[in-house]
């Protein structure tokens, strides 16, 4: 379980994350939504200990993240930032192998090789595993990075805009994969996402931020309603129900 208590982060005078307390349910997909500059990525970054919060504490599995050794925490929690310009000539397999770093420090064991193979297959990259990343399309690269995270095999996976730069087909593919990860492997996934319909369709819970504050946190069904969405985004929404899922129309 991920639990934050009174997390605040400010840069100079600007408060980016303001006193956020949230308990993220295990084994589910939680989407972080909100307009630009609402503090979503910063909050995600503090949970992933790549940004130091000014205030508050973050508990992962009953233990404060500051009490974790880097290596041990890297076996519990992984983060994938908005990717990911990479000027290195690595093959897909080499990149995915780095996911095993927290376990074996680069000396791959039998188990590692198995996990790497599994992760590559999970993201449908087996045919491309010996290709260099620079030869792949944006969508394939994104999948390769996700495969690395899958190989890292952490209970908690944090993703910062995983659909960035992806076309619809690849976006759907990635979301289905994530759903699969949470259902079959019981992973807890927290992601920052801008497309409200992807959030609505695929996530179990939605947390909404506005001006650094967490203003709503509930099941998807309870968040996707015109009144709450208007409060979050300041525009009008029409909610359409289809196949038991809620779709938002905000294009008018």
């Amino acid at each position, binding site marked *: 379980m991920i639990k934050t208590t009174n997390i605040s982060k400010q840069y100079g005078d600007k408060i980016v994350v303001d006193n956020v307390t949230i308990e993220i349910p295990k084994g589910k997909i939680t989407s972080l939504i909100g307009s630009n500059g609402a503090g979503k990525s910063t909050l995600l970054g503090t949970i992933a200990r790549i940004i130091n919060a000014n205030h508050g504490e973050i508990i992962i599995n009953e233990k404060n993240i500051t009490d974790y050794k880097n290596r041990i925490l890297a076996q519990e929690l992984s983060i*994938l930032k908005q990717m990911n310009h990479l000027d290195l000539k690595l093959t897909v397999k080499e990149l995915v192998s780095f996911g095993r770093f927290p376990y074996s420090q*680069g000396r791959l064991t039998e188990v590692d090789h198995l996990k790497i193979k599994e992760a590559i297959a999970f993201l449908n990259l087996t045919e491309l595993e010996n290709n260099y990343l620079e030869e792949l399309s944006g969508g394939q690269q994104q999948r390769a990075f996700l495969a690395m995270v899958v190989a890292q095999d952490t209970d908690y996976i944090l993703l910062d805009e995983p659909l960035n730069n992806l076309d619809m087909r690849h976006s759907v593919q990635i979301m289905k994969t994530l759903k699969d990860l949470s259902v079959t492997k019981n992973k807890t996934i927290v992601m920052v996402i801008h497309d409200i319909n992807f959030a609505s369709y695929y996530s179990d819970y939605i947390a909404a931020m506005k001006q650094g504050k967490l203003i709503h946190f509930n099941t998807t069904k309870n968040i996707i309603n015109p009144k709450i969405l208007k409060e979050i985004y300041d525009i009008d929404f029409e909610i359409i129900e289809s196949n038991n899922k809620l779709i938002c129309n905000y294009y008018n």
Partner: protein
Amino acid sequence: MRILTLLIALVFLSILSLFIGVKEISIVDIFSWTDKEWLIMTISRLPRTLALILTGIGISICGLIMQQMTQNKFVSPTTAGTLEAAKLGILATLIFIPQSASIYKLIFAFAITFLASIIFLKIADSIKHKSIIFIPVVGLLFGGVINSITTFFAFQFNIVQDVGTWLIGDFSGILQGNYEVIYICLPIVVLTYFYANKFTVIGMGENFSKNLGLNYRSILHLGLLCVSLSISAIAVTIGTIPFLGLIIPNIISLLYGDNLRQTLPYTAISGAIFLLICDIVGRLIIFPFEVPIGMTVGLIGGIVFLILLLRKK
């Protein structure tokens, strides 16, 4: 398989290098060498060849580490102010403790090189547009600034001419007893090999490293330590060899990719081979005189560098 071919080439070139010189010594008569011939071998020829191999390995590995850590294929000791800093260090030794042993030169050169590398990384970090050409250009400027400091003090102390000669790498002065500092490259190469994966990971950025549970700062500093120490040791004994740290890692990267653990042996051996060839050419071209190795390397390296530059565009 390939690595074996390279190793054979290295051994062959080393033997060739041992038997080139004004005094003709034949490998066939090895069992009937006179004392004098043995002396030439052990005092001059063998140290020279060993120094060449170690320098070749040291500089190309340093270039490789620098390129991985800055994520920029054009950063190398030549294009990051590293060599200039080493020179400033040597100058400082000459001013503060004249007549000192090379170990003092090494310590001073190392301290200043390490400092300069950290400053360079800070500058590179704060540049917003990380164009692949821009960072090495900044590095060259940075080197120029250090160089002008060196020249200023050299001028004050009347040793401008001495300083000038350090620039051009030279193996002809290598004799038993005056080159041993360079052996420091050996443990560094071994260390680099064990940390190769970590250097690759931190090359992908601070967040990426943290995600994998790696302490970014400490690995970065370890890398800089390795680079500064080897480059200083080489600068103190041989001088500076331009371009080597740039072209060898780049060629290997083009051929075998950027997984350090795998490419490191190739880079190391190719660096040594390249330097041996340049040295042999330099020694034969106006035999029995020598063209300084800095010139042959600079000429061949410069051309290769240009080709790489044009290809990248």
